[in-house]
């Protein structure tokens, strides 16, 4: 058993989602070409990739919205996703509610679709809206709400039946920074309560902050799936060294691909670790002024795993404020 990134609830070793070799083609174009996933129960799991990589198609196959052309999927122990629909919450990338419905009714309706009795759904809807500061909008029609508020109503509708698994497709798109923070907190809270949370995103920062595990998806394939730390470990830590001496015997201790930028040397941490390097630098009279070891970020890991092209595509789709 391993603990999740949010501390309180440990994984129980079971899998909320298991998929092997999922393939989906549309009109001869392979959208997803053999995806394998194993999402631990109680984890926060990110599916990371640029738009068009196959994230939405993968999620839709998992949820039974579309069927894979080949492959195997199991969700909450069921091979037919609709059999466990009452235990799943889903927020699609393209948000949508009936414009003429009142906020309370919209939430209750989404719950009813998942088997929650309408009366109980209305009661919970009122409760949720109050708790999230939207009580004043309970009797307003969706068309009277701002886009952000309507999105919050849909998120609450996704959770009203208290699902064991919540799937968010690009949940942060369209939300301002404040609401993005609120949503992150909500996702952490869900995980702390033992709910498995899966979300797709093309913003690495969200995945890095929230996820226990990620699947990197590019070109319809999954070149990496596993704990975030494991992804980072694909790239050795980077050493940044500043010395007093410009030349000397210590230079032989640096790797051949070490590069100099200004006063600093940059190179990957040798496989032998930091101690032999330190010893060689001291004995070679380098005169160490500063030395830091920087662990690779998820972005670097993504570049290393998915390739430069996928990383570039990801970068292009990043919201303006994040790029700055």
């Amino acid at each position, binding site marked *: 058993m391993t603990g999740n990134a949010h501390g309180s609830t440990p994984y129980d070793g079971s899998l909320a989602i298991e998929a092997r070799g999922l393939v989906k083609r549309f009109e001869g174009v392979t959208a997803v070409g053999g995806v394998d996933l194993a999402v631990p129960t109680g984890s926060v799991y990110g599916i990371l990739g*640029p738009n068009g990589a196959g994230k939405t198609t993968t999620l839709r196959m998992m949820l039974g*919205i579309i069927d894979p052309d080949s492959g195997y999927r199991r969700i909450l122990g069921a091979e037919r996703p609709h059999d466990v629909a009452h235990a799943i919450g889903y927020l*699609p990338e393209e948000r949508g509610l009936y414009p003429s419905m009142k906020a309370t009714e919209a939430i209750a309706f989404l719950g009813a679709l998942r088997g929650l009795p309408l009366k109980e759904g209305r009661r919970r809807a009122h409760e949720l809206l109050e708790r999230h500061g939207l009580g004043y909008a309970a009797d307003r029609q969706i068309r009277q709400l701002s886009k952000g508020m309507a999105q919050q109503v849909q998120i609450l509708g996704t959770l009203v039946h208290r699902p064991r698994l919540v799937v968010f497709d690009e949940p942060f798109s369209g939300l301002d920074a404040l609401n993005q923070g609120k949503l992150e907190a909500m996702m952490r809270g869900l995980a702390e309560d033992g709910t498995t949370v899966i979300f797709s995103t093309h913003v690495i920062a969200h995945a890095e902050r929230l996820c226990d595990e990620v699947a990197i998806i590019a070109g319809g394939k999954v070149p990496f799936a596993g704990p975030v730390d494991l992804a980072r470990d694909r790239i050795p830590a980077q050493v940044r060294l500043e010395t007093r001496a410009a030349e000397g015997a210590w230079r032989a201790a640096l790797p051949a691909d070490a590069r100099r930028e200004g006063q600093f040397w940059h190179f990957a941490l040798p496989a032998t670790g930091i101690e032999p390097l330190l010893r060689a630098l001291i004995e070679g009279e380098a005169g160490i002024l500063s030395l830091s070891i920087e662990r690779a970020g998820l972005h670097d890991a993504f570049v290393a795993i998915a390739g430069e092209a996928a990383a570039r595509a990801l970068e292009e789709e990043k919201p303006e404020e994040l790029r700055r």
Partner: protein
Amino acid sequence: MTADSHGAPSQGGRLSTLAAAWVVARRDFTAILFSRTFFFFLLGPLFPVIVGALAGSVGSRVERSADRPEVGVVMTGADADAVLRARDGLAERLGQDLPGLVVLRRLAAGERADTAAALAGKQANIAAVLSGTLSAPVLTGPRAQIEAWSGDVAMIAAQAERGTLQAWPRVRLETTATSQVSERKSRLRTAQAAQTLLFLLTMMLAGMVLSNLVEEKGNKIIEVLAAAIPMESVFFGKLFAMLGVSLVGIAAWGGVGAGLYLVAGSAFPHLPGPAVGWPLLVLLGILYFSMAYLLLGSVFLSIGSLAATVREVQTLSMPVTMLQLMLFFFATYAMTQPGSAIEVAAALFPFSSPFAMLARAAQDPAVMPHVVALVWQAAWVLLLVRFGSGLFRSRVMKSGPQGRGGRRRRLARAR
């Protein structure tokens, strides 16, 4: 936003196909019932009534204002007076179908009649001119007109020559309720009226269910529905919601109609009783209407899965509407050939079956064929909904919001 308490277990369980369809149907039914769409749906039957009344009123005005064609008489004074007397005398017995006579000119003895001048005279309603003598009358005018009037004019001339009206034998009248021919003709009228009503209602509703689905595709709600419940449930829910709405509408119209009938029943045209009787015909009418609508509605929903925009929907649904119109004519034609292979074909083909069978109910008292037909039609509804929902799943949920072209470009770039 903060986390929600997930301590309490989720309530409810997996919804059955019917329960899921009920959730969708309940939402759609309520939404449509309290919408402007339903208001216009209720007003729908008023439009043909108003247009019909206006057209009738204008038509009768036109008819009234048009001059009734008459025969101008150009004869000697005695002959002219004799034909006028004879005409009036005959009209009392035969009715006003005899042509009207107007004396244009009383000729002096030996004077020749100028019929061409008489026809070209100022009186616009003179369509022919009668000249000559009582024993040798001459009718001048356009061929169609004089051929139509020649018999009547000959009779008038003969009567005028005879002078007094002969006594005619009195015909004793023995009335019966109906004859074989008139009963069949009357039931055909009833069948035709039922079929037309069924067709109009079906077309109106199928169009409404299609608009509803396209609107949902626009609202992006369809993916939420598809993730939670089977697509068949979504289709059934939508179809039954609209059916429920239409039955409410029909009940409202029926109530108004019944009220009007109670108030002014005698003013309504008399429709002869159908072979199965009125109560069963009404019940079968509702059932066949439901089937016709469900069959066409499921086809229209399948069209909805192929179309991305309202314009595409219109383009795609036009051939289906035309086809349905042809099937309606086919069923109407089949109705006139009871027991023929054509009637059997119309009853078997699912889309014409409700129309053909309803017409049959008006003409034939057997009930069992209707049970078989309803089961047959219901099986086709199931088949079509299954096919349509499968098509919808495979065609609609293809990719994210970026569209296919952009998506492919990005895929290529990412690779």
